C-alpha cells in the first residue's frame, strides 16, 4: 500500500515538473491565460458538470481559476496550478479507474476558493459582519456549482415524445 502511494507520488511529481515545463515552454502570456479559462477546463469530460453549472451562473464571466487558483501572488498561483493541473491530468490519463463517480472539492480547493470569494467581494462583506459560518458557500450554497439539478441540462426539462403505452393519444 505504502509502496503504491510512494509510486503515485513520484509519478505525480514528474508530472508536475512536466506540466510546469510545458506551461513555461509555451511561455506566451496567452497560453497561461488559456489554462485558466473555462474553455480549457471544460476540455475534460470530468469537468463537464462543473462547467455547465458554472456556465449559467452570475459568475459565468469569470475564468475557473479566478476562483480555483490562488490570486494573491503569481508564485503561489502557478505552484497551485501546476500541482492541481498535473493531478487532474494524471488522474484523467493514467488513473481513470480511480476517478470518483461524483467529483468533490478537496480541502485545498475549498480554502483557495474561499480566499477568492473574499478578495472579490471585499466591499460587500465589509459593510456587515458577513462571517457567520466557516465558508461563504455554507450559505451561498449554489455559487456557482451548487444547483441541486446541476447535472441535468436543458434536455432533461424539454417536453419530449415518449412512448407511453395505454395513453389516450396513443403516442
Amino acid at each position, binding site marked *: 500500500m505504502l509502496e503504491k502511494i510512494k509510486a503515485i507520488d513520484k509519478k505525480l511529481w514528474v508530472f508536475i515538473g512536466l506540466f510546469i515545463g510545458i506551461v513555461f515552454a509555451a511561455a506566451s502570456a496567452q497560453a497561461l491565460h488559456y489554462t485558466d479559462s473555462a*474553455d480549457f477546463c471544460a476540455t475534460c*469530460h470530468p469537468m463537464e458538470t462543473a462547467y455547465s453549472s458554472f456556465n449559467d451562473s452570475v459568475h459565468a464571466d469569470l475564468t475557473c481559476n479566478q476562483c480555483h487558483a490562488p490570486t494573491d501572488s503569481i508564485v503561489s498561483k502557478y505552484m497551485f496550478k501546476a500541482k492541481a493541473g498535473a493531478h487532474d491530468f494524471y488522474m484523467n490519463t493514467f488513473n481513470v479507474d480511480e476517478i470518483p463517480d461524483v467529483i468533490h472539492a478537496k480541502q485545498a480547493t475549498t480554502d483557495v476558493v474561499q480566499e477568492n470569494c473574499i478578495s472579490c467581494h471585499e466591499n460587500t462583506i465589509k459593510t456587515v459582519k458577513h462571517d457567520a459560518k466557516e465558508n461563504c458557500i455554507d450559505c451561498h450554497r449554489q455559487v456557482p456549482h451548487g444547483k441541486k439539478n446541476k447535472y441535468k441540462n436543458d*434536455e432533461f426539462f424539454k417536453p419530449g415524445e*415518449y412512448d*407511453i*403505452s395505454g395513453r*389516450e393519444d396513443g403516442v
Partner: protein
Amino acid sequence: ACGAKDTKNGSASEPIDTGLPADTISNEAFKDLFPLQYESFNATKDMSDTKYGGSVPTSKFDQSKEPLLPILFNGYGFALEYNEDRGHVYANEDIEKIARINDKSFGSCLTCKSTAVPQLLKEENMGDKYWGANFRAEVLPAAKEMGHSPIGCSDCHDPQTMELRVTRPSFAKAMESQGIDISNPTKNQMRTYVCAQCHVEYYFEPEKKEVVFPWANGFKPEEMYEYYETVAKDQGFKSDWQHNISGAPMLKAQHPEFETVSTGTHGKNGVSCADCHMPYERSDGKKKVSSHNWTSPLKNIEASCRTCHADKTAEELKNNVESIQDTHKDALDKAEEISVSSHYYVNKMITAKAPAAKIAEAQELVRKAQWFWDIIAAENSTGFHNPQGAMDSLKMSSEYSSEAIILATEELVKLGVNVDELKAEIEKATKAVLAETDNFKKKDHATNTFFPAQQPPAAPAKK
C-alpha cells in the same frame, strides 16, 4: 466549450439504432450492445442490507421488521408469506416461489415481474384476456415460452432506439384519470414514470381483473381511500379480502413509492427516482453510465445523494436518513399495535352478539385504520420518501383504530363483557404469534377458541 457533449453511451439525445427487433424482450439480447448497463443490472443479484432496507431476503414477519403482520393480514395470503423486496433480477424467481400464489391466481400478478407482459397484452397474443387468465396454467408458461426476463431493458426502453418508454398501460390511464397531462413528458419526468408503472398502489378491477391504480382523486392516502369508497365500489370492487379476526372487508395496500415520493419534499422539488436510485457511475473508468443496480441509495451515498448534497458528508446524510427512519419505525410499530387490538375488539363484538349495525360501523373503522398504516408500511423507504406525509397517515390510522375500540368498548361493556379479560386474551394471542418460529404457522395462532375465525376457510389470496 463542451458542456453539452455526451458522456454516456447510448443517450436519448442522440438516437441510436440497436438493430434489434421491436419486440425484443430478453435482457441477454442487449448484453453485447450495452455491456456496462447489463453488468450493472446483474449486480442486483448482490445481497446486502442497510439499517432498514437493502436486498438480503428477509421475511417481513421477522422480529426486527413487522412481527404483527400475521395477525393484521389474517385470512389473506399476506399472512402466509410476505418478504422484503430485493433485486429486480429476482422478480420472476420470487413470484414463482411465493406462497401467496395458488392455482386460482391470475395473470395480472405477472404484470410487474416479466418483460413478456407488454407482448402478452397485444391483441394478437392474449389481449385483454391476459389479466384474468390463470397464472400458473396459462400466463406464466406463455411468458416463459417467449423467453422473458425479470424486469428487463424492454420494460423501460424502446429496444430499437433505447429511448425511455412506459410499457404498462395502467399508468397512463391512471394519470389521465387524475387529469395529469402526460402527452409530452420531460426526460426528468420519464426518469420517474418508468418506475411508476410498477412501484405504485393497485387493485384488480373486478370484471376483467385488469391492474388499476386508484389515483383519480389524488396521490395521498386519504385521496386513494376516497377512491376505493367511491369509484372502486361503484365498479363492484369492495375489498381484497374479509379479515379473519374482525370480519371487516379489507384493502391491502401496495408499494406506493411513486405516490409517496411525489407528495414529499424530494418529489415536489422535481427529484426523480433515477436521481437517487440510478446515479451516474463511472463503470469502466471512462464511461459514465446510469447505475442499473436498483437498491438502497445508502449503499452509494457518494454518487447518489452527494451529487445534490455536496455540502454534507456521507456520514451526515446517513445519520439524517436514519434519524428520520428511527422516528418513523417507532410510530409505525405503535400504529400496528393499536390496529391489532381493534381487530380483536371487533371479533369480541361479533362473538358477544353486539348489534349488527354497530359491528359494521366498527368494521368500517378497522378497515380504514388499517389502510392508513398499511399504505405506509407497504412503502419501502421506512418513511424517508416523505417523512411528514407518512407520519400524518400513521396518525390518522391510530385515530381510526381508536375510534373502533371506543365504539367496541361501549357495546361490549353494555353486553357485560369483561374488558380486562379481553385485553389479556389479546396479549396471549399476540404472544403466541410472536413465539411461533415457523413463519408459515404464525397466522394460525392469531385465532383460537376465544377469538374464533370469522372467515370460511380457504379463501384464495388474490394479490
